[in-house]
């Protein structure tokens, strides 16, 4: 089954190298391949979900398909599919406006398709060292995607990303080595496989496990944008082309959180779970607070959305740290809700950027007459992301907060206060943007259907998830929580 992923990925890459003489058609040809790639992966994932017994192991147990990995892959494939559709119109526009050169397109789409393959295999990884390698590869590929744009600030942003993420990841490998030695001591043969770690968790020395956990956590936290390793995130998200910002925010941050969740599931079975929980909650609250305080003075819409990603990752960390089955259920739902809403927000801001050639809210005038869809996308997206009722984020926030209240009331108040600041930051930008009018109207940027369609689809999905909880999803999330040993 997993070989099918690899083969189809390679085929798509192979087709990319077919010479295509008409340069005007090249963007569309490469984009069609990217769409086909995501569709194939989505179908394969659905087939895996339905027909493959879970957990299943492949390639000498280096790869594993279990409920959590399939769930994450499914989210990633949906986001990639929407992003590929959006990219059709968006990249064409980038070429027209000279923001990306035609000769760079193949590199762009190669990195794009390769990123999908790497992301899928990172989720299907059973071995932590292999997971680490694939995580590093996502850094490399997303940095390449950021620098294909013709701007020097993008190089600075990409470098900052590469340095922060990979420096932190070096600490992860120290942690992995300690963990390997620890399991070798406990079982005779060292291992870094998630499934064996779960089985052996009880026999690991709690002090040394916590020590190793802290090291591994540093790297994964940097990939997830957790404070204080978040410094790369706002710049990278804001400077990247919007279609890449989506992948960074809705897919790549998830991988960091996924790694932490897996590691926590192991920690949960050791006597070390208590200090580990406190570490996660501490970092989570710090992350939410720093993000909330940084959001209020923002005038750059994309940076605001980027900081909101940091805030949500912090919230997920708090949820994981609480570690009860109910919270984990809602943490998993929150991952989905956040991915969908963030995608809509970045898609909308991408259209606005093409219209006004700026991300600053002061430049966005006559937003409703010029770009009604993007305007509504931004408004509903902002409402959804701050957790207004009838949107899915509301459900997960509410349920996780109730559990947090049981854990510590003062902490609940601190986080609520932070959420208030976040809501104020979004409201401040929207209230100031909407009434702005220009004396001379700029030419309207015609948004192609391929860019509208994903936004409309996302809006429908978000509203549906906010008012109706599908039974299938409920069963799936319950199964995941069970499979993680909670």
């Amino acid at each position: 089954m997993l070989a099918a992923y690899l083969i189809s990925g390679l085929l798509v890459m192979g087709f990319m190298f077919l010479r295509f003489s008409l340069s005007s058609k090249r963007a569309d040809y490469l984009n069609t391949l990217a769409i086909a790639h995501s569709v194939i992966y989505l179908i394969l994932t659905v087939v895996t979900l339905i027909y493959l017994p879970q957990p299943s192991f492949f390639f000498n147990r280096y790869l594993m398909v279990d409920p959590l990995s399939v769930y994450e892959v499914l989210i990633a494939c949906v986001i990639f599919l929407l992003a590929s559709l959006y990219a059709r119109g968006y990249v064409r526009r980038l070429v027209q406006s000279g923001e990306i050169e035609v000769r760079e397109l193949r590199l762009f789409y190669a990195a794009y398709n390769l990123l999908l393959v790497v992301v899928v295999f990172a989720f299907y990884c059973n071995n932590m060292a292999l997971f680490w390698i694939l995580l590093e590869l996502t850094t490399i590929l997303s940095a390449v995607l950021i620098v294909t744009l013709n701007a020097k600030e993008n190089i600075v942003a990409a470098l900052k990303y590469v340095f922060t993420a990979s420096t932190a990841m070096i600490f992860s490998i120290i942690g992995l080595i300690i963990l390997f030695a620890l399991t070798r001591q406990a079982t005779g043969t060292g291992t870094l496989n998630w499934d064996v770690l779960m089985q052996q968790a009880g026999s690991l020395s709690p002090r040394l496990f916590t020590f190793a956990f802290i090291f591994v956590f540093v790297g994964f936290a940097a990939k997830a944008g957790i404070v204080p390793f978040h410094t790369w995130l706002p710049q990278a998200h804001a400077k990247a082309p919007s279609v890449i910002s989506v992948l960074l925010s809705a897919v790549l941050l998830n991988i960091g959180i996924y790694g932490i969740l897996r590691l926590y599931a192991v920690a949960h079975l050791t006597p070390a779970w208590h200090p580990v929980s406190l570490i996660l909650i501490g970092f989570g609250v710090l992350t939410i607070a720093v993000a909330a305080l940084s959001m209020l003075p923002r005038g750059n819409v994309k940076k605001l959305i980027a900081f909101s990603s940091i805030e949500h990752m912090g919230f997920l960390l708090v949820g994981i740290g609480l570690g009860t089955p109910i919270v984990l259920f809602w943490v998993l739902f929150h991952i989905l809700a956040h991915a969908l809403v963030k995608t809509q927000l970045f898609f909308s801001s991408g259209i606005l950027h093409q219209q006004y050639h700026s991300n600053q809210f002061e430049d966005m005038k006559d937003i409703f007459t010029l770009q009604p869809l993007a305007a509504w996308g931004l408004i509903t997206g902002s409402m959804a992301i701050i957790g207004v009722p009838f949107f899915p984020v509301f459900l997960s926030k509410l349920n996780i907060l109730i559990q947090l209240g049981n854990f510590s009331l003062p902490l609940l108040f601190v986080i609520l206060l932070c959420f208030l600041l976040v809501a104020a930051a979004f409201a401040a930008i929207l209230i100031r943007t909407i009434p702005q009018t220009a004396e001379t109207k700029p030419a309207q940027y015609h948004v192609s259907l391929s860019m509208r369609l994903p936004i409309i689809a996302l809006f429908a999905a978000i509203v549906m998830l906010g008012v109706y909880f599908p039974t299938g999803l409920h069963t799936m999330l319950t199964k995941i929580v069970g499979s993680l040993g909670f």
Partner: protein
Amino acid sequence: MMNLQLLNDITKILFVLVMATAALIITVRTLSSLFNVYSIQSWFIAAVAFVLYLKNGSVVLLLLAILTVVSKAFLVSYVMRRIQKSMHMKRDLEFRYLTPIGSILVGTALIFLVYWSFSRFLPVLSSDGLFLFGAVIGVSLTLMGMMVIFTRKRVITKILGYLTMENGVLLFSLFIAELPFIIELLIIIDLVMLIVLATVLAFGIDSSIDEFHNKLNSYVMWFKE
């Protein structure tokens, strides 16, 4: 098997030499000397792996020693030198936060800190004194590499800091555990890719955007139209 005591002594001498190269990486300002120091450091670490191989007879260690020499002492150094030539930059004189003397002092403090924390945890894993010594030197080297990243302004020197970190981890892994060879190999390939990318980006910072995109394309030839 060679005399065990002699091998242990050689390892200790190599540790001191590795620390000396770390001190040089923190202080040296001429870029070409920095590359030389890095290359020498990689040779020393390969030598440590080789000595450990003589001691344990594990083939993985021998392969690691060869891999380190090939990838770090030759390949990475070559790529860095080539890019440095096209950047027309010879020296890195800019420091942030710390002067070289300050860095050396902080570096020394770091070694003690690492020793203090690791001596509390690691003896659980092994009682071999050399094992703890190696782990401490490895992690200290990693932290000193990180210090280079923080205190130097030029990206190309920062990359050297990153490479030093990586050498530290390698040294650490030699003493703590042998990961499966395939994993070690993949990690090294990954890191080489990362270094090439970072170096190309570093070139981009100091050149025009056109030159940068030419370079980017020349490193990914097969994507060229």
